[in-house]
């Protein structure tokens, strides 16, 4: 990772037009690889975490050590699966939906700062951009649910659309206090503002920010449609929700983007609240990218822990939680943080 960072830093320093295009392409490729790696690492991790929580072993055979090659075997299996499009399905939308969802999660990676200089596109509106493109997934889910011509899929799509549209509001609102501190939406700026040890992370800057982080974490679970907020899938009610009719590689795309999104929301949380690439104690000789990834993976573990522990909410309770609990709390955090900022004199 550091090697790449240095390399890219040098390439970008040249700042010639052609080289910029080249570096963008390389970056896009890296991000696509990161996404694929996410899916591979996190499917294995999810199985192991679930097994650990459920007092069993999980995959143990493939790849000798604790089934590390299991995701590869899974991928090979999925590749071989028959690709079925239901006879009455809307073929265009049906084939397009997984791609739309995948692109939605791929685009958002452009503005994630893994390490100093290691960011695909250092946008001034980085945070806003991430939230904007990640809502593409809603369209993908609606397309998939509608095109499948399956009532359960339609239910899943309707639930998913309602849920994701709703939860984007508290999700974005909970990051606003941080923006008040940095006065910038640039992801690099946000991370740089947290330079130093744990005390400088936005998580611990003021109590409202801590609450905002909790709100962000809860809403991010809903945003990536995982338990206890997995309304679009709800395997015990809607069979498999919006991807009931999908098989093989198309289904794998949904799977891929679920884990990519999971890592994405964790990365955003790391960058915004948990100090990004800065080590917990200043001066620790840790690679910045390693800091960043370890923090994000810990958050992913937290996501998995929650998923395998809690029962699922009902769809109306989910909406209640969003509109009547999360959004007011997020708003209070915004106001409270602003006041705290003024009183403590940290305003920039």
């Amino acid at each position, binding site marked *: 990772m550091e090697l790449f960072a240095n390399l890219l830093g040098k390439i970008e320093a040249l700042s010639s037009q052609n080289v910029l295009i080249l570096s963008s392409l390389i970056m896009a490729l890296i991000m696509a690889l990161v996404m694929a790696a996410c899916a591979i690492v996190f499917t294995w991790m999810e199985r192991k975490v*679930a097994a650990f*929580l*459920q*007092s*069993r072993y999980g995959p143990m055979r493939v790849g000798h050590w604790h089934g590390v090659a299991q995701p590869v075997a899974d991928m090979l299996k999925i590749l071989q699966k028959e690709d079925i499009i239901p006879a009455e399905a809307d073929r265009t939308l049906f084939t397009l939906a997984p791609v739309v969802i995948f692109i939605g999660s791929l685009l958002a990676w452009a503005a994630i700062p893994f390490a100093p200089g290691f960011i695909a596109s250092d946008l001034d509106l980085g945070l806003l951009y991430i939230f904007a493109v990640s809502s593409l997934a809603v369209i993908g889910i609606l397309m998939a649910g509608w095109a499948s011509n399956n*009532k*359960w899929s339609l*239910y899943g799509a309707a639930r998913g659309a309602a849920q994701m549209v709703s939860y984007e509001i508290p999700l974005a609102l909970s990051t606003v206090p941080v923006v008040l501190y940095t006065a910038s939406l640039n992801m690099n700026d946000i991370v740089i503002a947290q330079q130093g040890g744990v005390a400088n992370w936005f998580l611990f800057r003021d109590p409202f920010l801590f609450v905002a982080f909790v709100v962000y974490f809860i809403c991010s679970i809903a945003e990536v449609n995982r*338990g*206890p907020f*997995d309304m679009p899938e*709800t*395997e*015990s*009610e809607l*069979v498999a929700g919006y991807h009931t009719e999908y098989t093989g590689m198309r289904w794998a795309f949904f799977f891929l983007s679920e884990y990519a999104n999971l890592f994405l929301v964790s990365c955003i949380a790391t960058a915004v609240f948990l100090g990004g690439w800065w080590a917990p104690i200043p001066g620790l000789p840790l690679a910045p990218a390693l800091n960043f990834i370890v923090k994000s993976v810990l958050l992913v573990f937290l996501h998995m822990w929650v998923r*395998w*522990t*809690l*029962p*699922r*909410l*009902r*769809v*109306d*309770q989910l909406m209640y939680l969003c509109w009547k609990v999360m959004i007011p709390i997020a708003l209070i955090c915004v106001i409270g943080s602003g006041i705290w900022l003024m009183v403590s004199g940290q305003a920039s």
Partner: protein
Amino acid sequence: MATDDRNLSAATGWAEQDDVPEMPSELLEINMGPQHPATHGVLRLLIETDGEIVAKVTPHIGYLHRCAEKIAEGLNYKQWVVYTDRFDYLAPMCCNHAYVTAVERLLGVEMPDRVEYLRVIAAELSRIASHLIAIATFGLDMGAWTPLLYCFREREEILNLLERLSGGRMLYNYMIPGGVRFDVPEDGWCEDTRTFIDMLENKKIGDYNTLLSYNKIFIERTADIGVISREDAFAYGCTGPVLRGSGVQFDCRKDDPYSVYDQFEFEIPYGTGEQGTVGDCWDRYMVRVREVIQSCRIVRQALEKLPPGPIMSDQVKKVMRVGPGAAYTRVESAKGEMGHYLIADGGQKPFRNKVRSPSFCNLQILEKIGPGMMVSDLVATVGSLDIVLGEIDR
């Protein structure tokens, strides 16, 4: 059918709350099942929904129908035991017990004490196993995966114990009219059973309560949902945990004693509306959790008092002729009141054997309480009824 325009506000009562202009709309007709993760077997619910609200539920059953009662007329009394295992395949010992009790009542013979004690131990272990599955799958219906694995881990222990006792893990064929097939194995079975019972009662049930029963989300999902009133429970013939969940302290083991249940001390848990209304899903669920504890008590007492003696009655001949006579005999199976109406003509085969299975009656109430709830609540309600299609379809 679904294309009819309907007055939805009348069907669901929801539109009345808002000033919604009258719009033509239609109900969505969905088949929940026979292949559906939440229907606990091959149950098909034809539901008509208005968005997330269920307007009508029609259960369609019979996918597992084997016409077992016809088979009964062609088999002799001992052969038929094998088929009783297959009714409630999650608690086959209870089904065995129901049948042998019915036959022995017609025969008019008393079993040796050891036989009855062994039957009680086996049936109660089976009941615990069945309730563990009920807890597990109910949690799964609520989206809680982990309790499922925990409960199956404990059930596995019971299966191991019953395997050592009877040789079978799922379908035991252990009790026969006139006794039980095997005595307790002499490899410390009783001690192992006692250890397991202690572990389950003192530790595991507390774990389940912490993890699931008193979880805030779980209570939100189950309290005040699928309320069955006392009167409805009687009218629809609900029995077992479903009836007790509605606040009725009735248990065949106490109120219509059979076997040696009158020699044990245990309580009948019943729904009190602790988290919501009496007779909601949570009450029914909790009755099962508490019954596990009571079954543990019964097993412990039975193991303590286990008398010596033969395991077969000498009053029952090898070639068994029953009757003539007819009797309806009921026992408390894991799911409720399991009854056998046995008409014997003095021969080796039953003339007619009607099986009254608890799930058959318990499921029926879904048509009554289903309309007006959300799809998710319907899943919760079906889960809380704890049906087994093997005994519904017979």
